[in-house]
């Protein structure tokens, strides 16, 4: 047996039909839901890289296997992308014919009336004194603009009206799904153009402590999208300075408000403007958003060398306990290179210091913090001298390798209150001058998010109309009055069909029947047969 081109074409077609079937779509939807689960249960690199690495390290081969499968980058993994891409192909395959079909339906005339309307799920009949043509006209008017009505003339003067409404149900359905596709495209495009950079800023003028957004090397962290990575997209050349950061807390140490007052300059030499950034109110500037994402304390010390020369330094400390803002950091004073007279100071900052074992805080008591609200804070310092090592190291700690190798040796330490000075044996003095607060600003860029918002709004509107609009069909068969041997007035039969399961069609139909009955003048009692009733509800 040979496989002909025809056979493979048939196979492809079968596969295509299988892909765009609802069953496949549902399976893919489920796979999507299931695939997202590990993304919430396992640590994810995009959310917490260090936690992820330590998880892999502590789980050995199992951890490496999971890593190999992309379990720590679920939402960027190939298999996750494969599922949603298949889903979207399946969706497109289903949408295209449906859009065509709906476009046709929108132009098509409502279907001709069936012969026997009494067999429809809802039906009723009545008589009217108006002629068939007159009644058809007034019934059309009574239905109103929401119904699309087609009037047809049948044999023996019978007039039928075919009415249909609720087209916006399918329109909404299609709008929802198209908007979903647009949303995905907007997200994908946004991924290309996005960048995020964060930087810790100390209070000071733009020139002194500030930074310019387009100087990418200045960021503490920089996460570019594909185009930003290639250098095709980058922030506008505006510059920032932090005037001050303030945090307020209640008595229990719970935060009430964080505020960063910033100054910025859109172009060098341009006017300097002021802005207040708070947690829910980023600064929107030149297509970027500037957020206040974290904050901390920055103690200031002055080091006096044995020769009397002094150096002052303010360094940001990292909070190690988010509840009490007990923080850690380091000061580094590089001496002339090669002389090994660098001074390195490691320390902690306790905003509301308490002795770990209770009691008073002495020079060397172990100290922790009780609250992030500063109340006579303590700066604990440990002073090292020697060689600090390379310049490229964390600014928040001394190089452990230098300490281990003995290149840096410990000379002493103490808990200092503001204004206190520690003098160590080699004559170096360390004074805790005071403290200020730093703020971390994040510059974010995503030009597509406004389109995503529009798509999302369209999704909600489409969804509401696709779930709640009622599709209805209604037919009127109007048989003209006959005179002569067996006279009869104009008889109207009405049948209705609910094409969607929202609402209460029986009640609706009863209301319609009543409205249509009143659209024509009632039959004079004299004309009416004894056993006739004005309205017969089947």
């Amino acid at each position: 047996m040979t496989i002909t081109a025809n056979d493979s074409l048939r196979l492809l077609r079968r596969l295509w039909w299988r892909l765009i079937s609802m069953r496949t779509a549902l399976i893919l939807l489920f796979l999507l839901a299931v695939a997202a689960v590990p993304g919430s249960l396992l640590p994810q690199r995009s959310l917490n890289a260090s936690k992820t690495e330590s998880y892999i390290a502590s789980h050995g081969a199992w951890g490496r296997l999971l890593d190999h499968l992309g379990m720590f980058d679920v939402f960027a993994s190939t298999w996750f992308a494969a599922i949603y891409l298949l889903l979207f192909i399946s969706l497109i395959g289903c949408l295209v014919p449906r859009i065509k079909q709906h476009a046709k339906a929108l132009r098509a005339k409502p279907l001709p009336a069936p012969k026997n309307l009494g067999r429809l799920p809802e039906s009723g009949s009545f008589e009217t004194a108006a002629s068939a043509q007159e009644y058809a006209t007034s019934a059309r008017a009574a239905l109103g603009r929401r119904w699309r009505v087609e009037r047809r003339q049948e044999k023996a003067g019978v007039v039928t009206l075919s009415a249909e409404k609720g087209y916006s149900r399918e329109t909404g359905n299609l709008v929802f799904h198209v908007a979903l596709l647009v949303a995905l495209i907007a997200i994908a495009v946004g991924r290309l153009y996005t960048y995020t950079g964060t930087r810790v800023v100390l209070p000071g003028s733009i020139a002194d402590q500030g930074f310019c957004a387009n100087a990418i090397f200045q960021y503490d962290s920089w996460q570019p999208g594909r185009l930003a990575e290639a250098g095709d997209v980058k922030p506008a050349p505006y510059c920032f300075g932090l005037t001050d950061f303030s945090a307020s807390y209640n008595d229990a140490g719970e935060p009430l408000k964080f505020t960063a007052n910033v100054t910025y300059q859109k172009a060098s030499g341009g006017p300097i403007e002021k802005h207040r950034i708070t947690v829910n109110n980023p600064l929107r500037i030149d297509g970027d958003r500037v957020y206040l994402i974290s904050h901390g304390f920055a103690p200031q010390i002055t080091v006096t060398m044995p020769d009397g020369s002094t150096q002052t330094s303010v360094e940001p400390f990292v909070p190690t306990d988010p509840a009490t803002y007990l923080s850690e950091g380091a000061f580094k004073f590089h001496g002339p290179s090669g002389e090994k007279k660098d001074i390195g100071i490691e320390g902690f900052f306790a905003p509301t210091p308490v002795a770990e074992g209770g009691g008073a805080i002495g020079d060397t008591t172990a100290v922790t913090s009780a609250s992030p609200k500063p109340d006579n804070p303590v700066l604990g310092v440990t002073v090292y001298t020697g060689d600090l090592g390379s310049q490229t190291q964390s600014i928040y700690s001394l190089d452990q390798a230098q300490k281990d190798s003995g290149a840096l040796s410990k000379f002493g330490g103490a808990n200092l209150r503001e204004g206190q000075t520690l003098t160590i044996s080699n004559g170096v003095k360390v004074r805790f001058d005071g403290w200020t607060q730093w703020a971390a600003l994040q510059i974010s860029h995503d030009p597509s998010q406004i389109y995503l918002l529009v798509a999302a709004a369209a999704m909600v509107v489409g969804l509401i109309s696709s779930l709640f609009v009622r599709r209805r069909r209604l037919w009127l068969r109007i048989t003209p009055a006959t005179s002569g041997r067996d006279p009869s007035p104009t008889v109207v039969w009405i049948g209705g069909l609910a094409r969607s399961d929202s609402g209460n069609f029986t009640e609706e139909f009863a209301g319609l029947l009543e409205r249509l009955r009143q659209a024509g003048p009632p039959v004079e009692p004299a004309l009416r047969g004894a056993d006739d009733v004005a309205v017969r509800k089947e």
Partner: protein
Amino acid sequence: MAVNDHLAHVSDTLFTTGIATYALAMVGYTAEYAFGRRGRVASTSTSAAFAPARVLVGAGGPELDADATPDEATVADIESAISGVDSGLDRGESATSDVDDAAEHIDTTEPPAAAGRRSREALGPRLGRAAVGITIVGLALHLAAIIVRGFAVDSVPWSNMYEFASVVGFIAVVAFLVVMVRAPQIRYLGVFVMLPVVIVMFLAGTVLYSQASPLVPALQSYWLAIHVTAAATAEGILMTSSVLTLFYLIRRRYEVRTAAGQSVRFPISIGPKLPSIATLDKVAYRTAAFAFPISTFGIICGAIWAEAAWGRYWGWDPKETWAFISWVVYAAYLHARATAGIRKWAPWINLLGFAAMTFNFFVVNIVISGLHSYAGLN
């Protein structure tokens, strides 16, 4: 910004009284359930073959499948009209078999009231009606507790798990009362809605309880009112939907087993006490379909808020991930229910969606830490 401890205490008292009142109402519903019911359904069920289907009308109206069992002589274009029954994105599969499906779903015999119960018949409905009254009193207390808590913390009172659970319980009771207005014949099932509500509120008041405290800066946004209200509303309604779905499954199982002449055990044995399979199917679907756009809106509002507060509209934070999972599962539910052949699985998908949502509330809040860690349980 300061917390008013006195008001917080008043709110706690109202909350506790509210639970007690709900528990009392639950006793009333249970009594009605136990003593049988007469109601309009049972009393009219023998009047005409299609009467129950008509009674459904009160439950929010028949859809095509309830009434679309036309005689053999259906005109061709009516058939085509029927086969075009609209349903989600039906991909042409829902087709005519929907009608066959419908026949299977139609349940023309509401369980008749057992003979010889006439003397007690009056008591059941009376207790049931009283239970509704008590529920409304409980609801008023509950609402007062929520409002007073709002004044105590000087913000919208649903910023931690205790407050959120309380609001979800409130919405679930409101959803049940609304369903009951549309379909009074389900009143005696109140016990099955009140039971989870009382359990959730009991958990809220005990393990999830947290002292009234001011909002952390990230929560100080008007989006808290919008996003969390939408989420709580959707969750409350979906909770009611899941209870109705559970009934639907019990009733369906009951009918399959009795038709096959097999014996039934609890919980399937409560089948005959439940409303018709068509009513349950419809009411469960309607509630879920009503909640779905609200849930979608809530997620979108969350994304807008996240863009302002956290610097990105979506970051796969565990809470976001589980919101996504629940949303996808409920989307699958709506599609499955609209597709013949898969429709029989739809109720299970509904329950799965509720399970995902419940997981998102309890496990993600308590066990998994993320940006949404506002549980207030530390």
